[in-house]
């Protein structure tokens, strides 16, 4: 093991901290459940049978490995580095979220919990949770802000078809953060028989660690596929960051390889100059919310601010604690793409490659297009195309003035 590489660390530490970030800031009732989850996970992480069950479902249920695809026409359009797309949009249920829900559902099953709950913003994690609930015969309840229920009707219907109960959350800003509050409240009340499947690499320890581990299959596949397809590792990785699970899944296996640049793309909304965005790493400061310390969008009194993004999945005032650490130590760069840039990237990728990206992933595509133009043709960017855009058709049609 290298001793002069500052990123050669095994994080989080024993208390779940990534530098000053992470940790377990929860009300006492949840402490025992989190201890139990941590103990179980640490045991199963190295258990051959558990890993075999996880790998089997990733291969035959999710459809992994997902392709690494050279977007030739997009590359030609940008005129610079070669742009490869990691096709998480081709996973069962249409996004990377399923990697994590399979892992956590297996944990729930092992712990003897028959009920699962989940929070969701865009609805992708809700659908992925409802899907594994059907797959493993678990009862499923999904908490979703009422604003998101309205703008993601298709996913709400999908969850219901899968047998899940969707609870519209009316408190606060009626978006993802409030759905997470309500899921926590439900969990605290039903902690004995309920497993909470958190959808992103955030929340109290051990969630940021285990979600990252389950999603890291993305980065490990890219490492292997890169060697197979272009004989070396990429020069840069680009992924969108809301809570940041698709990004950490791609980034994590590369943290100890500083020659590979990493760019996390936050939701710039209407622009970073105002307050209408969801870019805590770009514009926020460290604070405590939802069980962890991390960069947050907050006012001068420490109240959490409402956020804005065209994409419900990025509309969150916090971010996973490992990203906050990667920012602090300078290992990853965090940038933003605005609503308009994401929308433009959505259309470009659709027209040039016949691939309709989710609005979340469109943020990553938007930044990758700018970045590629500054790089040389023999360089390689891998973009995590974290989800497909079907769910966003109505939003896009409305923005384009089309009544679909």
């Amino acid at each position, binding site marked *: 093991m290298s001793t002069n590489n500052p990123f050669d660390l095994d994080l989080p530490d024993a*208390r779940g901290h990534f530098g000053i970030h992470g*940790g*377990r*800031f*929860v*009300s*006492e*009732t*949840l*402490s*025992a*459940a989190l*201890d139990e989850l941590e103990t179980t996970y640490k045991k199963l992480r190295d258990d051959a049978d558990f890993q075999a069950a996880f790998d089997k479902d990733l291969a035959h249920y999710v459809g992994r490995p997902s392709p690494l695809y050279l977007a030739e026409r997009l590359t030609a359009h940008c005129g610079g580095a070669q742009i490869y797309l990691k096709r998480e949009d081709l996973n069962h249920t249409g996004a990377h979220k399923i990697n994590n829900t399979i892992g956590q559902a297996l944990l729930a099953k092992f712990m003897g919990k028959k009920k699962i709950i989940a929070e969701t913003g865009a609805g992708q994690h809700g659908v992925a949770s409802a899907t594994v609930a059907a797959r493993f015969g678990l009862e499923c309840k999904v908490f979703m802000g009422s604003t998101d229920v309205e703008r993601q009707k298709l996913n709400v219907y999908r969850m219901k078809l899968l047998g899940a109960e969707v609870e519209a959350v009316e*408190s*606060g800003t009626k978006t993802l*953060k*409030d759905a997470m*509050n309500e899921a*926590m*409240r439900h969990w*605290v*009340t*039903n*902690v*004995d028989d309920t497993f909470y499947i958190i959808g992103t690499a955030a929340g109290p320890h051990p969630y940021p660690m285990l979600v990252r581990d389950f999603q890291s299959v993305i980065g490990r596949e890219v490492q292997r596929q890169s060697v197979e397809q272009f004989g070396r590792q990429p020069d840069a990785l680009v992924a969108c960051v809301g809570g940041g699970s698709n990004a950490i899944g791609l980034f994590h296996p590369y943290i100890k390889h500083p020659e590979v640049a990493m760019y996390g793309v936050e939701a710039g909304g209407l622009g970073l100059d105002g307050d209408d965005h969801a870019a805590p790493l770009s514009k926020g400061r*460290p*604070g*405590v*919310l*939802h*069980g962890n*310390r991390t960069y*947050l969008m*907050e006012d*001068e*009194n*420490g*109240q*959490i601010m409402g956020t804005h993004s065209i994409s419900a999945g990025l509309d969150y005032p916090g971010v996973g604690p490992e990203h906050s650490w990667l920012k602090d130590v300078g290992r990853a760069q965090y940038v933003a793409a605005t609503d308009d840039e994401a929308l433009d990237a959505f259309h470009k990728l659709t027209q040039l490659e016949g691939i309709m990206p989710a609005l979340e992933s469109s943020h990553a595509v938007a930044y990758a297009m700018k970045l590629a133009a500054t790089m040389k043709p023999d360089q390689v960017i891998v973009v995590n195309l974290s989800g497909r855009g079907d769910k966003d058709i109505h939003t896009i049609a409305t923005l384009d003035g089309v009544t679909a």
Partner: protein
Amino acid sequence: MSRIKNAFASLEAQGKKALIPYITAGDPQKDATVPMMRALVDAGADIIELGVPFSDPMADGPTIQLACERALAHNTSLHDVLAMVAEFRTTNSNTPIVLMGYLNPVERMGYETFAAAAVEAGVDGVLMVDLPPEEAVDVEGFFKSRDLDMIYLIAPTTKDERIERIGHAGSGYVYYVSLKGVTGSKALDVDDVARNLERIRKHVSIPVGVGFGINTGETAAAVSKVCDGVIVGSAIVNLIAANADNAKAAQDAVSALVGSMRTALDA
């Protein structure tokens, strides 16, 4: 001796149990809070838990969520809450005040700045629901060095070795959460509380207050038999909400409830 320690010692000497009402500061208006605190004392409160409003009260049920929303509608800040305590202290130097809330407003102000300002205002203890003792190790020095009591929660799910740790980390009293749930939940199970209190007493030498699900004098009296103090929050906040447009009516309703609880506890 701290005001909290003093209060429990004096109650014990009289064979009484502590009545600890909770209100959210700034609910429904900033200028309603100090008169309400005085009304609570007049009606028989021994200690006041004053809630610091937060935008994302994860451990609270609808009643206190809405109280936070009402208080935040006119931007009740942690600075405002400290100013309310200072104003209360101009006429009351005995009743202990515990600030209860979530960590982030304190984190934003800065731990040392907050601890110094809290002592200056006349605060006696702090209870931050999302700050368990393990995460407090880096900051508890700022509080302990100023004799601010750190009040921690114990839950029905807390294992014995953790209860012991919390008992050592905390001071003033520990707050036993009577049920698995959020504030304002269904009525508690007195027998269940009694069993857990027996377990807690083996490891905790400071007073134990019980809260969550105490909404009548009868429940308060029954629970008080096995603990040192009862904490009443949502039942009071509901009365404040029902009389949000009439401060006098709110005070009368709250005084009547707190007074009836005092009577039941002392009977």
